């Protein structure tokens, strides 16, 4: 009587996606916790991957052709902060409530530049503005005042109670200083040339509090003495692409350079932290000539950078960094944290906090719309978007043997599709639907005597098994969706379970059951 061979079985468990996106490594060298194709996924729960929340339109500004050039939150201690918005119609607006729907925009000034974005700094209760074209100006919440004799600078930065300006026309190396404590008084000799005549130009001013950081396109300097303007080179190879693509987060300064996303280190050349995204930073993929319009945001546990791809006039892709997910090395130094990609219709960003609210806002990149980013919605201004997690190829420890996958188990939330690829081939080999959507209340609400939500409900996270019946030497799994909903996420506040809105689906782990069949002849 024939007897079935005793084939060695295996069980395999994925290790999450805390490694983030990796488009640099060859497809067979990507670490198990990294993703190759990936998009619109957040990593806030270490190891898990979840579809991001969407962008909700909060109305329009200006005419239909208006686009935003820059935006800024003007905090006024004790009073409601104003959000300022500079548009391609040459109008500067403000609103007292950027979270209203629709937002009411009030004109501050018209007839200003329609191409050169204002940069902003708040000092002594006023916000100061400059764009290199229009006169340096002050806005105090009610009155717009210009200073015709101040340098017309593109970039403003406050450091040591002094306003510093750079980017004046025809003076690409020059940094101006106001009088100490007075951002409206400029001495006739209060300037310094940084890297005079080196052929480069200043693209950004920022500060770590100790020094004024002067970012040229291909180098970085600091001014370390606000009296004598003493300065030195920090990095003679990496510079800043955009004044608006600089973000400060927990003591670190992160910025977009030609080499990728960098972290400023101060006492040594900046560190490129986006090495896993290296293939992105080539002229064939990103619009090098438009990187000065790149922007950045800080929101919750993440830092985002938006910039245009080749052929795009506006920012078209966002890379997001999760510094808190970095793992410390054995020497205690924090390693490089993961990145993810987003495609969001966003151009310029500002984070706004007032009373009980803290929200990230952006202008739409192809419309005159004001967006609440990561709002509790499952679409981007009414348009569905897809989230993608794609694992590396797994060979279950044996490269040459063919395996049979019997079943997959998913620890997950929400609804998504799973596409299976095998043997490094492109075509989809198998696809299945995983539906872990939940019913929140089994009880008949109309007859409910105990109160909605106090009766039975399903767990937000479910463990589902799917038969798969697949053969191959190695397998890669892609998780993606076509949903437009949201799913709550549980946060334990002590021993009390709270729910916060989050993206439609999440993947926490996948378990594979199968057997190794042997080598094909």
């Amino acid at each position, binding site marked *: 009587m024939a007897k079935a061979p005793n084939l060695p079985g295996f069980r395999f468990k994925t290790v999450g996606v805390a490694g983030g996106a990796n488009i640099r490594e060859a497809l067979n060298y990507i670490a198990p916790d990294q993703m190759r194709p990936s998009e619109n996924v957040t990593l806030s729960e270490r190891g898990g991957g979840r579809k991001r929340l969407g962008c909700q339109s909060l109305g329009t500004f200006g005419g239909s052709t208006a686009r935003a050039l820059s935006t800024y939150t003007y905090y006024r201690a004790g009073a409601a902060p104003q959000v300022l918005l500079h548009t391609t119609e040459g109008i500067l607006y403000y609103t007292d409530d950027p979270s209203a729907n629709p937002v009411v925009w009030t004109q501050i000034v018209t007839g200003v530049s329609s191409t050169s974005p204002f940069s902003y700094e708040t000092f002594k209760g006023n916000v100061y503005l400059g764009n290199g074209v229009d006169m340096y100006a002050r806005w105090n919440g009610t009155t717009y005042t210009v200073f015709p*004799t101040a340098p017309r600078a593109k970039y403003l930065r406050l450091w040591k109670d002094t306003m510093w300006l750079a980017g004046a026309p025809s*003076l690409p190396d020059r940094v101006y200083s106001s009088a100490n404590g007075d951002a409206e008084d400029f*001495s*006739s000799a209060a300037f310094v040339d940084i*890297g005079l005549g080196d052929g480069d130009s200043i693209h950004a001013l920022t500060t770590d509090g100790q020094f004024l950081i002067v970012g040229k396109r291909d180098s970085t300097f600091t001014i370390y*003495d606000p009296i*004598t303007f003493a300065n030195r080179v920090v990095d003679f190879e990496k510079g800043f692409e955009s004044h608006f693509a600089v973000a400060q987060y927990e003591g670190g300064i992160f910025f977009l350079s030609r080499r990728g996303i960098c972290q400023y280190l101060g006492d040594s050349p900046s560190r490129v932290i986006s090495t896993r995204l290296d293939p992105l930073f080539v002229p064939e993929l990103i619009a090098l000539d438009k990187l000065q319009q790149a922007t950045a945001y800080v929101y919750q546990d993440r830092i985002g950078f938006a910039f245009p791809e080749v052929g795009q006039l506006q920012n078209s892709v966002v890379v997001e960094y999760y510094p808190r997910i970095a793992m410390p090395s054995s020497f205690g130094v924090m390693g490089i944290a993961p990145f993810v990609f987003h495609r969001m219709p966003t151009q310029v960003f500002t984070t706004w906090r007032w009373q009980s609210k803290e929200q990230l806002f952006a202008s739409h990149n192809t419309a005159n719309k004001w967006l609440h980013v990561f709002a509790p919605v499952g679409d981007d201004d009414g348009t569905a978007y897809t989230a993608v997690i794609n694992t590396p190829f797994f060979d279950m420890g044996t490269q040459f043997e063919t395996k049979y996958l019997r079943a997959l188990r998913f620890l997950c939330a929400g609804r998504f599709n799973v596409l299976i690829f095998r043997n490094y081939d492109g075509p989809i080999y198998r696809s299945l639907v995983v539906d872990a959507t939940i019913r929140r209340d089994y009880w008949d609400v109309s007859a409910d005597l105990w109160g909605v939500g106090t009766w039975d409900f399903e767990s937000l996270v479910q463990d589902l098994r799917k038969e798969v019946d697949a053969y191959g030497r190695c397998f890669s799994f892609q998780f993606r969706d076509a949903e437009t909903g949201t799913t709550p996420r549980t946060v334990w506040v002590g021993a009390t379970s709270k729910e916060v809105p989050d993206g439609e689906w999440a993947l926490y782990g996948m378990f594979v059951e199968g057997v190794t069949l042997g080598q094909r002849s």
Partner: protein
Amino acid sequence: MALNPNAVPYSREQVATWLGETTATDEAALRTFLEGKLGADAQMMVNTTQMNAWPDFTLLIDMIIADLPSYGFTYG
């Protein structure tokens, strides 16, 4: 003794006013004009030790002339 750049007692506003008054058609004429405005301070030196590619000390007039583009000034 040279003054640090921020300690120079002539503001951009003052210099802009002067530049609005002059009809100098070249640098020499402008220099003479500014010397007249500055009077005894025409020889005022500014500490430019930290200015890349500048001498350690520079005449204030030379600094003003080097910064004319920021005022939008053109000769004549």
